[in-house]
């Protein structure tokens, strides 16, 4: 690689860039174990703020709600997004494919504020219609957040599944069909095992997206549906507290675990370029 310019320069750039990405995160994790009541000030090693967190009922309640919403939304997203990705990769040119692809891709590129506002307006209109028809409508809250997050997750799962199927030879499925397997048997014994890693990675992606979302949740939620990011956001508006610092460290730990799991799943059958799409 003698002719390659900046072999050294690009390596320095990579190290500096990774440092820039990681330094604030590592400092945040480190200072979560500080006893001082001012964040990012070292006051000796202590688990004080983790204990404070464990005693904070509002925070725990919001965290539990967020985890349930994320799990439900990710599961719905995998079911619907899996079908979407499969249809886009394997159904050939069916009528309305362009519209279908456009709709499935839209949540990926729409600004969050637009997604949030438009979904809220939909829910308001639906509530109005239900009230006119039955005299009663379900309120907004965890349910509407789940529907919104499932829609976002669907789009991401569809991309991952479609990319995975595009890299697989359709001959595998055709061979099974030629050997006499019915469409359902082909799906269950050939397609499903092949796309299972993509489905698992998609589930994790949808799960973290849901756990991370403030904007869409703030729009579509109601008074009874304060998710963890909504609560953290409202506190960060006042500034960083050591409790939030400890929470962030825990979220980072969880995210690192999940990302490690996803990397293992995808790493077994993907390369860098495949998922960067």
């Amino acid at each position, binding site marked *: 690689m*003698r*002719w*390659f*310019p*900046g072999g050294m320069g*690009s*390596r*320095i*750039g*990579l*190290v500096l*860039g990774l440092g*820039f*990405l*990681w330094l*604030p*995160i590592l400092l945040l994790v480190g200072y979560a174990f500080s006893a001082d009541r*001012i*964040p*990012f000030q070292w006051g000796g090693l202590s688990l004080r703020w983790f204990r404070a967190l464990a005693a904070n009922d509002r925070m725990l309640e919001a965290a539990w709600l967020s985890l349930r919403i994320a799990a439900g939304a990710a599961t719905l997203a995998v*079911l*619907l997004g899996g*079908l*979407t990705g499969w249809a886009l990769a394997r159904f050939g040119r069916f009528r309305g494919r362009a519209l*279908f692809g456009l709709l499935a*891709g*839209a949540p990926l*590129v729409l*600004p*969050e*504020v*637009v997604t949030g*506002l*438009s*979904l809220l*307006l*939909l829910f308001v209109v639906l509530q*109005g219609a239900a009230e006119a028809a039955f005299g009663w409508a379900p309120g907004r809250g965890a349910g509407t957040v789940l529907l919104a997050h499932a*829609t976002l997750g669907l789009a991401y799962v569809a991309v991952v599944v479609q*990319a995975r199927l*595009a*890299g697989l030879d359709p001959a595998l499925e055709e061979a099974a069909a030629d050997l006499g397997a019915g469409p359902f048997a082909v799906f269950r014994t050939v397609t499903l095992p092949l796309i299972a890693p993509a489905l698992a990675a998609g589930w994790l992606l949808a799960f973290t997206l849901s756990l991370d979302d*403030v*904007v869409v949740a703030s729009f579509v939620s109601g008074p009874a549906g304060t998710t963890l*990011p909504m609560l953290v*956001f409202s506190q*960060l*508006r006042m*500034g*960083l507290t050591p409790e939030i610092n400890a929470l*962030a460290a825990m979220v*980072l730990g969880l*995210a*690192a675990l999940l990302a490690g799991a*996803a*990397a293992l799943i995808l790493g077994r059958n993907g390369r*860098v*370029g495949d998922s*960067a*799409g």
Partner: protein
Amino acid sequence: MMRRALLLLPPLLWLLLLVAAPVAILAGIALSESAAGVPPFRPPFTFDAGWQGTLEPLRSLVADQYYLDAFLRSLLVAFATAACCLALAYPMALGIAASPARWQMPLASLVLLPFWTGFLPRLGAWIGLLRDGGWVNRLLQAAGLTSGPLPLLYTEGAMLLGMVHAYLPFAVLPLAATLLRRDRTVEEAAADLGARPWRVFCTVTLPLSLPGALAAFLLVFIPAAGEFVIPELLGPPEAMLVGRALWVEFFQNRDWPLAAALALALLALLVLPISLFQRLSGRRAP
């Protein structure tokens, strides 16, 4: 064929109800008059009264300098964010592409992992680092560069720093993918023909990576243009961007038609970059 249609039906209905219908409703409400009540607008069309719509919300976007400034500022901030991300990402992507094959995946994961850790913890870290008694100010004072704390947090600089930090992984990965896929024999040929390293880079590597660079730029620019959380947490109160203006109109002023009009205008502005991005990524997909 019948069975396929049945499989297609659930996602199609879901997308029609939760993606297509909301955007249509958004457009409808952007054409309606704001009114006291719940919900606080008059529908633009009812069967009893017929058409009652108005172009007033859309007109006030153009008439009011406040909103024009917000759009201009958002585009500028998104452009600056994407440019900074690209400048930082290029050497990083080159570094990943130039490293031994077994290191490429772990390095890419290191870039991607902060994205998985979420926006809010990272923004919290910057709040802690940039505040008056924070790390950065203490370092500056220890180095004797300033005597008192500099106001770093809640400035345009802090906002830009937070945006670049949040979006940098988006820029590195498509670039790294493009650079990994490039045909290195072209570079070798240029070198064999006597071009010096920098000349090889400027005349071969850089032009070959332009589609990836443009994709990386757009991947940052598009979400950055509508960003709300980062300007709100790190930026100065006067940095009124579109995302923030929309939020204020909706949550504080309860002017739903105006918020919907802002959302529509933001969409209209982003149609060009979005379709450009989809064309780029469509061409690279198998």
